[in-house]
């Protein structure tokens, strides 16, 4: 019986990590449903971006208040995870505060003291975040796409943080030997007196309960990530690594189109010749569903934190149009999840559900409102590119369905016939030089 806690702990750990592992596998499978794209270039620049944007949070501080608070929670999260490491080792080996022996009293004290200080800072930041969402009701958290689950998701995470931080402090405050040692109990020494009325036995039970709840809470949190916008804690790293390196204004040139255009422009080409490589001919031009997008775009969707910085900078959204770049990302993720569940339910293959990203999630009205200004791309703190999805879907509308707004069709006819978007003759192109 002596080893019962260790065994229970190991089981909890295996269950927690195992379920997380299953979901990570699903996540990777879903992302791989996207089209291939070559992102093997300039590894140095990519590492650099990851270090600066994900690790260094360089984009967060564009908005100073939210940025500072976020950095506190982020640093708190990373550092307190060192404490989790100790908890896991203790739990498995049946030791108590194993790092104390390793580090020595004063060094260990410094560590725990900094954790406790961070815990208080995190609590403070989380309260500010909660106020922004629920009392101040910041506009970017109130949009249509945030109703329901996304709104709850945002709050659930905040409650989680509060509970975890309180459990951590309680655990320290009720650890009598730790309090007696009087090193590192920077904050918990002020909480300890609250429990002075209890017997030593009761206090020990509280300490053990807080310890267990803390680690179980963390395992639940870990597994909650997959279902939440908080996946960005993990995915921000690969996403900033794979983010766009080219100038923001540069849209990709579709290679499949290049092949056809070359054929059309080449006077020697045999129009009836079979295409050289049938594999390079795509099923369709542009994207009408998530599987037409490339996998980086799908990774983007899972990484989106739903912060709405993109939408709040979007000129179309600011002037009341339906377009919201955040919604584009949320829709992409929702549809991808739907396809993933479909595959799970049908034994590993997708069964046509008669739905797609276009129309069932994103309407042409949203797509046509975009000015391609790149404000959303610039604003995103984790290098997401909503514009690329908008353009790919426009490509489908225009090249597969000829469904551009009438005025744009006129513009394109002009370009085709006169080499200008207006009905002027190309031969008049230099007239300005002789006009006054």
């Amino acid at each position, binding site marked *: 019986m002596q080893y019962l806690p260790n065994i229970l702990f190991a089981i909890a750990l295996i269950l927690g990590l195992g379920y997380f592992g299953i979901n990570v596998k699903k996540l990777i499978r879903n992302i791989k449903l996207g089209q291939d794209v070559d992102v093997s270039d300039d590894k140095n620049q990519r590492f650099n971006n990851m270090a600066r944007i994900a690790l260094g949070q360089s984009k967060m501080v564009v908005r100073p208040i939210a940025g500072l608070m976020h950095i506190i929670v982020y640093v708190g999260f990373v550092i307190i995870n060192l404490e989790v490491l100790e908890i896991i080792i203790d739990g498995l080996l049946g030791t108590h505060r194993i790092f104390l022996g390793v580090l020595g009293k004063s060094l260990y004290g410094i560590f725990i003291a900094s954790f406790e200080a961070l815990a208080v800072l995190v609590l403070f930041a989380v309260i500010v975040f909660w106020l922004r969402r629920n009392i101040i009701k910041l506009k970017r958290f109130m949009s249509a796409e945030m109703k329901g689950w996304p709104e709850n998701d945002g709050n659930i995470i905040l409650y989680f943080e509060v509970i975890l931080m309180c459990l951590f402090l309680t655990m320290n405050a009720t650890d009598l030997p730790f309090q007696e040692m009087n090193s590192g109990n920077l904050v918990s020494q002020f909480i300890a007196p609250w429990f002075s009325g209890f017997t030593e036995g009761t206090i020990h039970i509280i300490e053990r309960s807080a310890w267990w709840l803390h680690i179980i809470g963390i395992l639940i949190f870990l597994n909650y990530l997959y279902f939440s916008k908080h996946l960005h804690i993990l995915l921000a790293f690969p996403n900033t690594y794979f983010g766009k390196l080219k100038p923001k204004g540069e849209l990709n040139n579709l290679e499949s189109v290049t092949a056809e255009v070359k054929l059309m422009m080449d006077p020697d080409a045999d129009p009836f010749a079979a295409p050289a490589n049938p594999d390079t001919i795509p099923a369709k031009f542009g994207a009408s569903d998530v599987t037409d997008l490339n996998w980086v775009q799908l990774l983007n969707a899972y990484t989106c934190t739903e912060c709405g910085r993109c939408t709040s900078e979007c*000129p179309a959204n600011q*002037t009341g149009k339906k377009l919201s770049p955040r919604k584009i990302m949320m829709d992409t993720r929702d549809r991808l999840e739907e396809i993933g569940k479909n595959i799970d339910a049908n034994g590993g293959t997708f069964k046509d559900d008669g739905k797609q990203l276009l129309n069932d999630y994103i309407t042409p009205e949203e797509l046509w409102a975009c000015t391609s200004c790149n404000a959303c791309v610039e604003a995103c703190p984790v290098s997401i590119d909503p514009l690329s999805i908008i353009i790919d879907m426009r490509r489908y509308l225009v090249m597969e369905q000829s469904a551009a707004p009438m005025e744009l069709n006129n513009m394109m006819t002009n370009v*085709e016939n006169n080499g200008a978007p207006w009905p002027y003759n190309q031969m008049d192109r230099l007239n300005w030089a002789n006009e006054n």
Partner: protein
Amino acid sequence: MSEQLKVPTMAQLMAEGKQPEVLFWVGCAGSFDDRAKKITKAFVKLLNRANVNFAVLGTEESCTGDPAKRAGNEFLFQMQAVTNIEVLNAYEIKTVVTTCPHCFNTLKNEYPSLGGSYTVMHHTQFLKNLLDEGRLSIEGGQFKGKRITFHDPCYLGRANNVYEAPRDLIRKLDAELVEMKSCKSRGLCCGAGGAQMFKDAEPGNKEVNIERTEQALETQPEIIAAGCPFCNTMMTDGVKNKEKEGQIKVMDVAELIANAQDL
């Protein structure tokens, strides 16, 4: 303003066996739009004044394909691109300058992988170089001390990270450069990009150009400076909508410099 503009075409230079130092890509707006043609001419005056050996394609120029690409018509874009690249490569063009940020972006970023690699400059960058090389001098003239705010074109600013060249030029006019609350990388679009110029906006509660004009008016400028023919149109319309066209002018940076010298 009196002298005749000197606008050599590539075909003429070719016939004379000459090669220009730079090709001036005029663009569709610069060729056909009445307001934008003034910008084109102002820029040519500056080129003439600085004795720049340049040429235009004239009737051999065609739309870069930018609006088609942004509208989703990749076919039409690449057809335009391949046609233009053939012409540019046949003339062995190395350097291109353009007054349109959309042409600038497309030529600079989207042509290389289709076989057209050139050094491409926006006219504000080119003018800045002329200034630095001492080939062009800038005087404040009528703009000395005037309050000028600069509207960043998305395709120059965010799209290609060019923020300082136009501002450096405006400062050279001894003008008071005032920034809007959202400027540079956070500048608000004028509403014309992404082929919006050629269609009505989707239903909403405001036009984008009105929103941007209001931001510009908050700085109480005498002049709203632009670096793009489309932004110019959108901001001019915005100022008219606010019935401020009597007090506030919308001018391209090239026009400011040319007018300051009474060219």
